[in-house]
């Protein structure tokens, strides 16, 4: 006969044996990695800088997804769709210009994703040039950054993956000057999807980088939306500020997607109002009637580029990335073949190759974590980035939080960003 122990397991906790076995063989995050400090936080969770305890002692960025809480009790509530995407897609891809996922550790109801570490990102580089150096990014660096970005994007597209959230904060750069596209939390495999893309996520891409077909309410979209975002990023690198800095109209109480009037006006102001000749499909767009009510603008991209990207071919690349008709917009493949990349200065694999050492953007700063969960004891991390100004904001909508107990807390990233004009959509931080 079965004893009480067995019966109770069978009836109340049928996975007990399995769980015990698994938990016994589990190696915890803190046993594998030394958490050096806290980098940033966002809606998804928090990012830490960590060093592995193995011989190489490699530096990593560990992204800890927030565990869901029901009241005060942390409970399993299922892995979020974005975590599933990021885990699934990262297992399939491997490319020099994409942030590599080293491992996923599932522990204590939280998901830890261990990524390769990148010292910089586009947003930080832009900020460094606009605030510290007060000088534009050099032509050689600009071209290298854009080239590698497109190279990474081409890889994603050839794997049938849409990134859907390209923006400066998501594009990282290693200390060796290699670009790494990060944050695949919104990325999707578009090969024979079972659901239309629109059905899953109503809104994709941060508003300033959102392609016109999305703003016009298109239900179907293609990899051309990523190419538009590349155009926006390239323009931002060249001018050190977002080219189409519109205000986002928020979802109404019924979660309907509103007409993004201001963002479209910002685009039309530079590129002119699209007509049927530029974009035959525009008349079929859901928001076409709303668009017709807007003022009419002429295209002045050439003027815009004149002072910012002096090279004619640079202007031509941007012009083609900003073609309204998604069918005709430059693809990543064609963009990589563009003449601009063939003329001097040629793009380099170390994007900072031509930059004097003292002008290279500062290292990402790390702070003591407010949340006690990952940081066991106060550690001496003050040699990291001491004396530098800005914190870095990797992995999407994130924002540095000032450290609370740390000596250099006073000069941490938050304040610097507020003055640098962080977009409203990124402001998730509670300062102080």
């Amino acid at each position: 006969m079965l004893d009480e122990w067995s019966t109770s397991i069978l009836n109340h906790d049928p996975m007990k044996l399995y769980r015990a076995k698994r938990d016994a063989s589990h190696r915890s995050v803190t046993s594998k990695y030394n958490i050096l400090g806290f980098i940033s936080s966002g809606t998804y969770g928090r990012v830490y800088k960590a060093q592995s305890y193995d011989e190489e002692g490699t530096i990593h960025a560990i992204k800890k997804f927030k565990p869901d809480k029901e009241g005060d009790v942390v409970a399993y509530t299922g892995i979020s769709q974005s975590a599933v995407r990021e885990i699934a897609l990262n297992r399939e891809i491997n490319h020099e210009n994409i942030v590599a996922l080293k491992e996923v550790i599932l522990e204590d109801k939280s998901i830890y994703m261990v990524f390769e570490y990148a010292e910089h990102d586009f947003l930080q580089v832009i900020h460094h040039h606009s605030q510290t150096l007060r000088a534009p990014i050099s032509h050689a660096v600009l071209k290298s950054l854009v080239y590698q970005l497109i190279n990474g994007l081409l890889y994603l597209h050839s794997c049938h993956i849409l990134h859907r959230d390209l923006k400066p904060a998501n594009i990282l750069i290693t200390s060796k000057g290699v670009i790494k596209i990060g944050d695949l939390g919104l990325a999707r495999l578009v090969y024979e999807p079972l659901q239309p893309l629109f059905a899953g996520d109503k809104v994709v891409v941060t508003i300033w980088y959102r392609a016109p077909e999305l703003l016009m309410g298109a239900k179907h979209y293609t990899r051309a939306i990523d190419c538009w975002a590349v155009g926006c990023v390239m323009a931002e690198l060249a001018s050190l500020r977002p080219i189409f800095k519109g205000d986002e109209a928020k979802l109404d109480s019924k979660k309907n997607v509103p007409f993004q009037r201001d963002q479209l006006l910002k685009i039309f102001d530079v590129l002119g109002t699209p007509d049927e000749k530029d974009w035959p499909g525009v008349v079929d767009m859901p928001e076409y009637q709303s668009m017709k009510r807007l003022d009419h603008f002429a295209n002045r991209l050439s003027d815009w580029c004149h002072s910012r990207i002096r090279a004619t071919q640079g202007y031509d690349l941007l012009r083609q990335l900003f073609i309204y008709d998604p069918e005709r917009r430059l693809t990543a493949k064609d963009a990589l073949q563009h003449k601009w990349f063939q003329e001097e200065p040629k793009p380099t694999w170390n994007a900072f190759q031509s930059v004097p050492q003292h002008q290279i953007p500062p290292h990402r700063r790390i702070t003591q974590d407010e949340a006690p969960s990952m940081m066991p004891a106060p550690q001496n991390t003050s040699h990291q980035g001491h004396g530098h100004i800005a914190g870095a904001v990797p992995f999407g909508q994130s924002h540095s939080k000032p450290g609370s107990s740390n000596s250099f807390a006073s000069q941490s990233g938050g304040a610097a960003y507020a003055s640098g004009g962080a977009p409203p959509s990124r402001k998730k931080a509670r300062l102080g």
Partner: protein
Amino acid sequence: MVDRATLAQARYDDLQYVDDPECLDFLAIYFANLITKLGKKLQFRQRVIATATVFFRRFYLKNSYCETDPFTVIAACCYLAAKAEESPIHIKVIVAESRAMFSQENYNVKNFSSDNSKIAEMEFYLVDDLEGDLIVFHPYRTLLSLCRKESGTHASSSNSEEGEADEGPGVGIEDGPRYWGTGEGQLELTSAALQTAWSIINDTYRSQLCLLHPPHLIAIASIYLTFILHPPARPDAAHTLDQDHANESSPEHPTPARQPRRSSRQANHAPSHTTSPKKPQDPIAFLADLNVSLPLVASIAQEIISLYTLWDRYKEDVSPEASKLARELTNSPMSSGASPLKRTGSRSESGLASTSGGGTPSAENRDDTVDPEGNYITPAFLSSVLQRMREAKLMDMAPRPVAVNKRLERTLAAG
């Protein structure tokens, strides 16, 4: 992909606790059926069901049935597969539907928890055991890329309750030309034949085939079996199929004539076929051009047939299509195994059967496939087998692990 040794190793522990090793194969069918049924209830697309089944099989490469609760695992697999295939559903729905289904009398699973967090916790361990490999490739894609519906037969899309061949490759939002955009080099099949191939692929998930062979070979094996059920219209092409097969395994035996059987099959399945063969296509050349190992394809086909033989003894609410396929395939000349000697024997037999049986071969074939003892394996029986396995395992574990578990709990509480 794994080999049979790995597969055997994975079941080693279970074998200690089961009387008849064959039960494990039936459990494999049983669990896959449960996943399919649960998936249907949740209105999953076929691909989601297939992905969930692959997750389940991969999980049990590392774990044993007797140490786990397969019903919890099934629910977690479905939950995760829905997300991995970008058609998520709420965890509450999964838990409620699973609970409702598993507690039905014929499954007799009483202890399925209504606690969402149990499934969510299982999902965690599942992702870990799957090592994050959540994107699964299925034979359906190969099938639809190699074959297309014969033009002119679109209207006659048959009842597709089991499969979804009619749905085509999902929502076509792909920009740019597809790899095979022109349809050039695709094999035309009648819609009935395409449906058959699709259903055969569905059925392969009842076995471990999806772990042993790459999806494209399973697809090709299914197309191959479809040729047997829906022989191509041109007699010479059909003849080459036989010839080719005969050459493969038994070159010294010339192929006996099987035209009578063929024509009766053809009448059953593909009435439209004879009227529309305007573009002659040679299926053998087609298969040969695929640059895959045909003997390997044949052996996969063989494994599919043995699955049908086994499945025929399993009784749930048996899908009529499945048992029909089982009968037809088990009675086809291929079924008798790779040995050339046995092959010849079976051929003449089936030749006889078809001549004497006239137009109704399936009625006759029945006798061959029913278990000699007339025993059908039922879900309730399998549930009780599983329950016994689990109890036995716990009995073995009970004395020592109490201490182990206490220690574990202490460490958990401390950490």
